[in-house]
C-alpha cells in the first residue's frame, strides 16, 4: 500500500528540464533523454523484502545521487541495475528496469554489465599489475584486438580516471602498492576501459580522505559528458555538490526523487526534510 506512495509522489514531482536547468545542469535536449527507468521494482533477500515498489527515471549524461540511512536499500537498488544481485543466492526481483527502453533481463548479462559499469564502496583491485587491472575488462570482453590497441585503451582509461600521470612509470607494478584513493581511481579506470554507458558508484569515497574524495568528485564532473552516473553516498554535501538529481531512500522505499536543489532546499516530504536537515533519528 505504502509502496505506491513514493511512486505517485514521484510522478507529481518528476523533474522537468526546467527543474534541472535551475541547477545549471542542463543545456539542450539531452536532459530529457531517459537512460534507465525502473518501474515497481521489488527485491527480496530470502523472505526479507529489501526494496518496495521502486520507480525512478535516470537521465542520460546526468549525475543521480541516492541518499538515505544505511540499510535502506541503496546498494541493493544499484545492484539490481546491473543484475549483480542475481549472483547472491536465494534472492528474487520483480518489476522492470529498462536500459534505453530495453528490459535489462532481455540483455545478455555480460553485455549489460559491460554497458553498466560499477565501482564499489571498498576499492577492489585485482591482485595483478596496474596495467592488467585496467586491461582485464577489455580482455574478457574480447575488446583487445592487439597489443598496441590494448596499451592505448589502458592509457586512455587511466587518463580519464585522472590517474595516468601518477602511474605511467609503474604500470607493471602490483595495484596493491597504490594508495587508497589511487586504488579507487584505478577501479574507476578499470570500469571505464570497457566504455560503459552508465557508471554505478556505490559510496566510492567512504573510505577516502578529503583530498582523494575531491579528486573523485572532479572526475565525476568530467565523466558526465560521456557517461550517465549514479552515485550512492551517505555524505549529503557530496550529493549536493555532484548530483543533478537526488533520490531519498528510507526502509527500502524511494521516498522522494527530484532535482538536487529541490531535495535539499525544498523537499516535498517531511521524512526527506528531516533527513537532509539532520533531524533524522
Amino acid at each position: 500500500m505504502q509502496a505506491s506512495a513514493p511512486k505517485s509522489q514521484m510522478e507529481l514531482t518528476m523533474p522537468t528540464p526546467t527543474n534541472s536547468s535551475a541547477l545549471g545542469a542542463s543545456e539542450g535536449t539531452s536532459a530529457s533523454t531517459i537512460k534507465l527507468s525502473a518501474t515497481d521494482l521489488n527485491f527480496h533477500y530470502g523472505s526479507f523484502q529489501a526494496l518496495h515498489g521502486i520507480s525512478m527515471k535516470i537521465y542520460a549524461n546526468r549525475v543521480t545521487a541516492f541518499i538515505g540511512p544505511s540499510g535502506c536499500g541503496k546498494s541493493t537498488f544499484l545492484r539490481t541495475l546491473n543484475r549483480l544481485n542475481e549472483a547472491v543466492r536465494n534472492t528474487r526481483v520483480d518489476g522492470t528496469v529498462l536500459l534505453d527502453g530495453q528490459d535489462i533481463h532481455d540483455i545478455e548479462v555480460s553485455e549489460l554489465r559491460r554497458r553498466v559499469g560499477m565501482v564499489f564502496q571498498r576499492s577492489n583491485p585485482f591482485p595483478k599489475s596496474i596495467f592488467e587491472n585496467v586491461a582485464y575488462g577489455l580482455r574478457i570482453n574480447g575488446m583487445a584486438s592487439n597489443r598496441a590497441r590494448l596499451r592505448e585503451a589502458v592509457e586512455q582509461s587511466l587518463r580519464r580516471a585522472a590517474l595516468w600521470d601518477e602511474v605511467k612509470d609503474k604500470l607493471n607494478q602490483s595495484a596493491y602498492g597504490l594508495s587508497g584513493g589511487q586504488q579507487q581511481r584505478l577501479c574507476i579506470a578499470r570500469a571505464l576501459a570497457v566504455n560503459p554507458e552508465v557508471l554505478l558508484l556505490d559510496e566510492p569515497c567512504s573510505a577516502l580522505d578529503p583530498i582523494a574524495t575531491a579528486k573523485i568528485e572532479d572526475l565525476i564532473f568530467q565523466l558526465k559528458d560521456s557517461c550517465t552516473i549514479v552515485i550512492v553516498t551517505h555524505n549529503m554535501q557530496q550529493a549536493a555538490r555532484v548530483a543533478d538529481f537526488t533520490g531519498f531512500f528510507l526502509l527500502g522505499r524511494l521516498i522522494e526523487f527530484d532535482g538536487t536543489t529541490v531535495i535539499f532546499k525544498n523537499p516535498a516530504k517531511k521524512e526527506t526534510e528531516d533527513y537532509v536537515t539532520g533531524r533524522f533519528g
Partner: protein
Amino acid sequence: MTSLHTLRRKAVNAVMLSLTGLCTFAAAGTLVFILGYLFVHGAKDLSLDFFTKLPTPVGETGGGMANAIVGSAKLLLIAMLVGVPIGFLGGVYLAEFGGATFSFLVRYVTDLLNGVPSIVIGIFAYTLIVLPQKHFSTIAGGLALGVMMIPIAVRSTEEFLRAVPASLREGAMALGASRTKSILTVVIPAAKNGIMTGIMLNLARVAGETAPLLFTSFSNRFWSPGWEQPTAALPVMIFTYAISPYEDWHQQAWAAGFVLLMLVLSVNIIARLLLAKRKHVAR
C-alpha cells in the same frame, strides 16, 4: 579474604604457566633433539657417494642411495600427477560450485579418507595395480602416495579459494565476466600462492611415507629403469637398513634420514615463505 583469593589466583596462574611452558618446551625440545641427533649421526657419514652410487652388497663398505633418491623423486612425481589435479579440481568444486548437501558429503568423505591409515591405502593400490599385474611397480607406489595427497589437496585448495574476498569476484563479474571466467581469471590466480603452498606441504608430508610403499613399489637394489619395475625409495631404505644387523647399514640409514629430513624441511620453509609473500600482497 581478598588476599587469600589473590594468592590462590596467583598460585593457579604460576602452576598453569609452568605446566604449559613445560609442555611447550617438551614439544619444541623433541624436535630439536631429533634434528640434532639426525645431524650428529647422519651428516657425518654423508659423502658425495651417497648421492651418486648404488647400494653395495652386504659386507662391502661404501656405496650410496642414488637409486632411492631418484626413486623417491619418481614416486612423488606420479603422486603429484594423481593427487594434484583431483585434489585441486575437487577443491575448486567445493569452494565455488558445490551445493550445500553434496559439499557436506564430499567434505565428510575427504575427512574420512584423510583418516584412513596409510597402510590401508597401500593395500588399495596393491589390489588395484600390483595384484592384476602380478609385480610391484613405481606406478603402484606413486598411486598410493597420490591417493594420500587427495584429501589435503581438496581441503587446502578449498580453504585458499574461500579466503579470496567476495569483492574480487564481484569486481570481475561487474566487468562482464561470467562466474566461471571470474574464477579462472581472478579467484584462482589470487589464491595461487596459497594453493601451491598447500601442495608443497602435502608433498613433503607424503615424501616420508613408508608403509604404503612396502607392497606397492617395494624396493630395488639397482636402478629402476622405467615406471613398471619396483623401485627403491628413501623411507623404505631407511626402514630396511635400520632393522638390518649391519653397523655400516645403520650409518647409511642415518644419512638417508638426514637427507629426507632436510628435503622435507626445505620444502616446508620454501612453502612458508611463499605463503608469507601472499599475505603481504593481499594485505
